[in-house]
């Protein structure tokens, strides 16, 4: 049975992630990593795709990781994890070696786009692993290029807010849906502004045998052109404007964890981020309305799935 906490102070103290890494000031990824390493009990091994987290935490000769940690390449975190998982299964059967829980951290780049095939294969084969996408909504480590996770209208270096085309034209890929379509028993969205919710969902995922998928919104002050001190505030507003619904899929049942009855206006979320500044200009009204429609449609879809519509 998964350990569940009620208040923040029940979160374990032991840190398995050390400071001294080179993640940006105000980065929204470490809150996820620290929580995961506390919420997953027992021996564990972490696989990380190439990206911000991998690069900034393992610049030779330094490492921030206090668990076994493997980096292979960019698009193959799920495949590498599958190999580790299968190896420990065999070694456990043949030589009684204790099998650690395999955890994958990959960015939206290494998950939605280049890493999607490896993830799809690993999910279909049913490997016992927790796959966690830390989503900062662009290829941040290479300098803020758009990904399939970039929301409609956002400005990135490959979808700039230009005179003719104001930001990314395409909507954000529906990643949770993709994971659920693979038949995982548990999938959930996470947000750093909701620590207890995050811990409990990770613990729940860890207690399940088989693949589970978690999708975390990682605020990125550098890429989102935001004040680093406001990273958590922005993440909270993502939830309160319904831009980032907090929900879980648990053996066929959808549960919305934070039911936002009266959403804050989306502008409250957008105005704190330079990547959306152009959307608040009158000439880009249409794009803004489309983004709002994306969010509303997604919310209504989830309400229906949760039996609340």
């Amino acid at each position, binding site marked *: 049975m998964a350990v569940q906490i009620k208040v923040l102070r029940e979160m374990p103290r032991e840190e398995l992630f050390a400071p001294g890494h080179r993640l940006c000031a105000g980065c929204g990824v470490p809150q996820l990593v620290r929580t995961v390493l506390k919420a997953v009990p027992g021996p564990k091994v972490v696989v990380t795709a190439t990206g911000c987290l991998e690069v900034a935490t393992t610049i030779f000769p330094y490492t921030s990781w206090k668990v076994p940690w493997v980096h292979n390449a960019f698009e193959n975190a799920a495949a590498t994890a599958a190999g580790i998982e299968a190896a420990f299964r065999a070694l456990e059967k043949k030589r009684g070696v204790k099998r650690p829980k395999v955890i994958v951290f990959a960015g939206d780049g290494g998950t939605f786009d280049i890493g999607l*095939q490896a993830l799809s294969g690993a999910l279909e084969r049913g490997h016992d692993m927790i796959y966690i996408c830390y989503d900062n909504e662009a290829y941040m480590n290479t300098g803020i290029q758009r990904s399939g996770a970039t929301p409609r209208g956002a400005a990135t270096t490959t979808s700039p807010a230009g005179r003719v085309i104001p930001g990314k034209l395409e909507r954000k890929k529906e990643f949770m849906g993709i994971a659920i379509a693979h038949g995982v028993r548990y999938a959930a969205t996470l947000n750093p502004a909701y620590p207890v919710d995050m811990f409990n969902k990770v613990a729940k995922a860890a207690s399940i045998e088989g693949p589970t998928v978690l999708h975390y919104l990682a605020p990125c002050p550098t890429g989102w052109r935001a004040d680093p001190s406001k990273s958590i505030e922005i993440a909270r507003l993502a939830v309160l404007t319904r831009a980032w619904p907090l929900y879980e899929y648990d053996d066929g049942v959808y549960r919305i964890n934070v039911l936002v009855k009266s959403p804050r206006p989306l502008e409250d979320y957008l105005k704190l981020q330079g990547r959306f500044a152009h959307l608040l200009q009158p000439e880009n009204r249409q794009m803004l309305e489309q983004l709002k429609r994306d969010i509303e449609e997604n919310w209504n879809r989830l309400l229906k799935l949760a039996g609340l519509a």
Partner: protein
Amino acid sequence: MSVAVQLKGQRRVGMSGNEAVAYAVKQADVDVIAAYPITPQTIIVERLADYVHDGELNASFIAVESEHSALSACVGASLAGARVFTATSSQGLALMWEITWIASALRTTIVMALANRALSAPINIHCSHDDAYAVRDAGWIQFFAENVQEAYDLTLIAFRVSEDKRVQFPSIVNLDGFVLSHSLEPLYVLEDEVVKELLPPKEPVNPIDPEKPMTYGPLALFDYYLEFKKAQAEAFKKVYPVILEVFREYEKFSGRRYEPVKTYGLEDADVAVLILGSSAGTARYVARRLRNKGEKVGVASLTLYRPFPVEDLVAKLKGVKALVVMDRSYSFGSPGAQLFMDVAAAFANESERPLLINAIYGLGGRDLLPEHVEEAFRRAQEAAKAGRVEEREVWLGVR
């Protein structure tokens, strides 16, 4: 290859190259197999799936969704301390190429069977050595099998070499696509207990261990990358003597002696050909015919391609005045095809060296016929007589 004099603990069977490789892998009691089917390797994967599903092999069989994921999974599995195997050909190897460099640099002990097949385009499923050559720089040990017996033996040898604590590098066993992979030949297989003695369970070096947490595959900036590569280069140089040692050990178990460079008639040859893979037999057949007519010709073939047996080959080719290097691939815009460049480099600083001719043959499964080898010897003889090479590159059998 010396005639088997020690038949105790062996059985004579008939198998195709693919079946023989799969059988060796089963006997090696691998822990993890991650492989994706591609002609002409497919039967290796299918046979291994049979063994696992029938309970004859206790391994995790990961039916990966691509070759890139196959090798990626193998890297993870090897780091976890498992004995690991994969197999591929051609496009599959090309797809996993990114990971081959990582597999070597992270010092995995993966063994791969490569059923040599031509690279597209145009698409072709038959034998060329493009795939083997494509990874020659990446730091994998590479063996070439000449027949099914060798494919079997070299697979067992590969596990023994790769997992040796003094080595810790991945290996490839090359077997010519269709020619060896699909041809049924007689061979001797070791009994299971004998293989168990030759290959005890893997004793991993620094495996993933939650009790001893380590970081595998960090970022190394310009202040360290050079040193890591130097360390890898020096470690790779230490592999050669271990291979010789394992070859000698294997002879005790099987009665079959392997050497990095196989020779025929080189003791007194004026001209010779150098060749890899199954066509060496054809070359020797022609050489024997010519020698019976009094012509001093010889054949050298490599069982070990990487590390390249520089000193051994130079020594064995001493006295040869003209050498035809036979390449079953091509390198566009290069000073020669791949093996030609290897040989030219091997002789670079030798005061005495043979004239070199590059013969391109057998691409895409085109048969190497005796008359092609005769042409090769003839050109070598002409060059030796004239004291120079008129035509450096010749394509045998092309219309």
